[in-house]
């Protein structure tokens, strides 16, 4: 028992000295590169934000198409969702960046990145919003229609506002996934968190420190989003009983 305690204490001392050494090495290594890391952080934020805007607008349109009574619109939207949900995002981004120039559309890595991320996430957002629209009772639409609202007005003022409160938690999760997926602009040379830290790690051979910095930066983005999503989930649970 006595020996065990001594062993445990020695182990703890080694563990903490190791941890302290790691933290010290982390600070020493990252110092001097703060500017690059902060710029990289904002690139990731901008890519995610623009992709988010695309996916919300595109997702709403596609969800409306999927729930519409016109068969052609429904099929088109379903084809879009089923196609983009089942291919890797990296293929889309590389297609936009390396393939589209062959068709005469040249775009920067940044553009290809956020457009690709937006196109991909739109498929998932459309599914989430469609689930939200389906969750709204048909009686709501019928009541709005019998009050003299047009179909579009009923959708705009009655169904969509309710649907959005239902889909907010899934949208939160999709946003987190999208921030994480924004790392995929790395292979086409957009200096986001992943590429910047990867390059710095290459240049200094300090892989642990810089990838540790990347982990910290991503957690700075995703953990608050996860917290907000959990709050929204709790709120939705309370309001919907």
């Amino acid at each position, binding site marked *: 028992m006595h020996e065990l305690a001594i062993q445990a204490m020695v182990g703890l001392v080694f563990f903490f000295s190791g941890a302290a050494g790691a933290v010290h090495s982390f600070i020493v290594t990252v110092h001097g590169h703060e500017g690059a890391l902060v710029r990289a952080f904002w690139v990731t934020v901008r890519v995610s934000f623009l992709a988010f805007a695309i996916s919300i607008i595109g997702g709403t349109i596609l969800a409306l198409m999927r729930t519409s009574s016109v068969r052609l619109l429904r099929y088109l939207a379903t084809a879009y969702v*089923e*196609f983009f*949900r*089942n*291919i*890797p*995002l*990296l*293929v*889309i981004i*590389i*297609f936009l960046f*390396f*393939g*589209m120039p*062959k*068709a005469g559309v040249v775009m920067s890595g940044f553009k290809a990145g956020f457009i690709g991320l937006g196109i991909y996430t739109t498929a998932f957002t459309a599914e989430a919003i469609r689930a939200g629209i389906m969750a709204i009772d048909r009686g709501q639409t019928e009541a709005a229609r019998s009050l003299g609202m047009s179909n579009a007005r009923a959708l705009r003022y009655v169904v969509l506002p309710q649907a959005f409160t239902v889909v907010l938690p899934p949208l939160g999760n999709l946003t*987190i996934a999208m921030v*994480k*997926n*924004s*790392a*995929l602009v*790395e*292979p086409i040379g957009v200096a986001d968190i*992943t590429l910047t830290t*990867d390059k710095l*790690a290459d240049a200094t051979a300090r*892989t*642990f420190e810089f*990838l540790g910095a*990347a*982990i910290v930066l*991503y*957690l700075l983005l*995703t*953990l608050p989003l*996860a917290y907000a999503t959990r709050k929204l989930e709790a709120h939705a649970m309370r309001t919907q009983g």
Partner: protein
Amino acid sequence: MLQWLSDHLLGWLGPRVRWEPYTHWVTWRYLLLGLKITAEIALFAVVLSLVIGLVLALMRTSPYRWLSGPAAIYIEALRSLPALLLVLFTFLAAPRLHVSLSAMNAAIVGLTLYNCAVMAEFMRAGITSVRKGLFEASRSLGLNYVQTMRYVALPIALRRMTPALVGQVITVNKDTSFASVISVQELLRRGEILNNISFNPIQNLLVVAGMYWLINFSISLFSRRIEFRS
């Protein structure tokens, strides 16, 4: 016949000369061998993350804090990171731990690190969805904790979490493309290599996307059939 098809129906896919590589079996074979490597990565990553995910989920739902605490920290931290970052991290950092992983193994380990956290979370949701009364009933019948889990809770939970897990399998299939970033010659990487040989990125990437799509769409159709049955 084929020529007529490509002239009249596939014109919008680009000039016919760009499809020329795909008139040779060797191009297809090259890509299909890449698909095999993709499948290998996906298979290993899925099996490993299912096993480790189950352990993590059981740890997290266990009544002991020294088990549930570390599991919760691992799950929450790893779930919040990009899988690509973890693949890169495994590939670049493993040599510094004096573990030399091949690029392929690094991809498998990196994807497992991420996906076992995600799958653990799905499994936890499945386990906690089992009603408390069932636990109490089986405990009062004299089953111990392990037996309760094994014979009562997990069979029910497994059925409930299957759709989410199958969805995650599709995600893993797609995420195997990250291995191309660390130079594994899987499907996407081979497509890019073909780009550099014959300068037809649109055609190559369409074929590559089609291969991914076929596999993932069949899995999602299959999972929908399972859902309807249960």
